[in-house]
């Protein structure tokens, strides 16, 4: 498993503004697998995600991606091999949907026609009719539609790994459920590996091939959703209690 992993996080620590946010986290993500990073606010889950695409610098440990250490990667090239989706999509407000989705292919120097075709294909994949949506600006979209565009943008250059930071947290429950289901389907068809940050245990159980429960900058529990319901750590129990009272 260790050698086949797409992404390997080895004993990674991180300090931000004098505060230790990550304390020796190790985790690997195999191809096609979704690892959910579950935790409370301040548990370090988002920071861990951001160390992977070098948005946040580590202060110890090593991250390997596609068999190469992060230090050997050019940060710009590394990021273009990873799709990135955040809570409110982070779309560029001055660009049309088409330009937003086509960004990474354009940066990679694809020819115009190929980008157009790819954008069309992606919009179809995320359930947005290209003819209706291509020319719209982000402000002309609903929250759910923006998130779909965000996912299309992340998939654009066909990166092997997706990084998602609470991508559905800001959506209403019905839209959220809809997008969660579609994302699962999509991931099955395109077979991407994903690191998926959430604080919602229900979402974690639904989306994860495995769940990494973080607490105070450490991995408290790393297990499958089936096993997660039996884990006896305090933190896991706390999250399950939250599930039951819903």
């Amino acid at each position, binding site marked *: 498993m260790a050698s086949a992993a797409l992404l390997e996080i080895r004993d990674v620590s991180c300090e931000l503004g004098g505060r230790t946010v990550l304390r020796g986290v190790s985790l690997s993500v195999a191809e096609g697998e979704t690892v959910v990073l579950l935790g409370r606010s301040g548990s370090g889950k988002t920071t861990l995600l951001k160390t992977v*695409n070098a*948005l946040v610098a580590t202060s110890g440990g090593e991250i390997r991606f596609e068999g190469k250490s992060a230090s050997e990667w050019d940060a*710009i*090239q*590394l*990021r*273009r091999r*990873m799709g*990135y989706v*955040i*809570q*409110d*999509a*982070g*779309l*560029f*407000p*001055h660009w049309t949907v088409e330009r937003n989705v086509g*960004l*990474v292919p354009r*940066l990679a120097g694809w020819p115009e026609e190929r980008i157009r075709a790819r954008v069309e294909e992606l919009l179809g994949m995320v359930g947005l009719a290209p003819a209706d949506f291509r020319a719209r600006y982000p402000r002309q979209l609903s929250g759910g539609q923006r998130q779909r565009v965000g996912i299309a*943008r992340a998939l654009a250059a066909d990166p092997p790994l997706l*990084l998602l930071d609470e991508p559905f947290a800001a959506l209403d429950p019905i839209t959220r459920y809809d997008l969660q289901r579609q994302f699962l389907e999509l991931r099955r068809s395109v077979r991407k590996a994903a690191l998926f940050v959430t604080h919602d245990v229900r979402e974690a159980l639904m989306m994860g091939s495995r769940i990494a429960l973080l607490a105070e900058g450490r991995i408290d529990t790393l297990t499958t959703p089936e096993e997660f319901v039996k884990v006896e750590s305090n933190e896991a129990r706390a999250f399950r209690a939250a599930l039951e009272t819903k």
Partner: protein
Amino acid sequence: MIGEILSLSLEHLELVVITLAVAAMVAIPAAVWLARRPGPRRYAMGFANIAQTIPSLALFGFLLPLPLIGGIGKQTAIVALCLYALLPILRNTLVGILGVDAGVRESAVAMGMTPRQILIEVELPLAMPSIVAGLRIATVATIGTATIAAAIGGGGLGVFIFRGISMVDTRTVLAGAVPAALMALVADEALEWMERRLSRA
């Protein structure tokens, strides 16, 4: 009289256009540089703020004896006017760049855009309405302040105003003041229109 109003208006316009071109060429790149450097930013804003508080007539007076930039004439006037025009352009450009949504900037970095691409394709276009607003404030202020340039031989519509004051002739004062006010109104409207267009895009 009409002919002189026209020629002095043109001269006035020339002072304003040169001033704004120079001020924008200094202030916008400076703001871009300062946007990523909070330390020097404090000093630069402090300097620009202080320059703003010097009474304009006094500033013209201070510049007169200086070598190279000083002396009687347009050049000294333009230097002084630039010092005033710098602050609004600098501040608004900074506000525009720093005001870009954190999620948008983070996405730009995460998509693998280089700092240069982020600046040119994301930050500057999103800051544009704010930059234009700064240019508008600077333009209107410069049109007014430029009337004082006549005091040090800079020409422009201030020539009428100073002549009118010394002759105690209100009509001559108005011959300078009214065209200057009109010029300011037109510039204000035009740039505000541009600003609105840019914010909609």
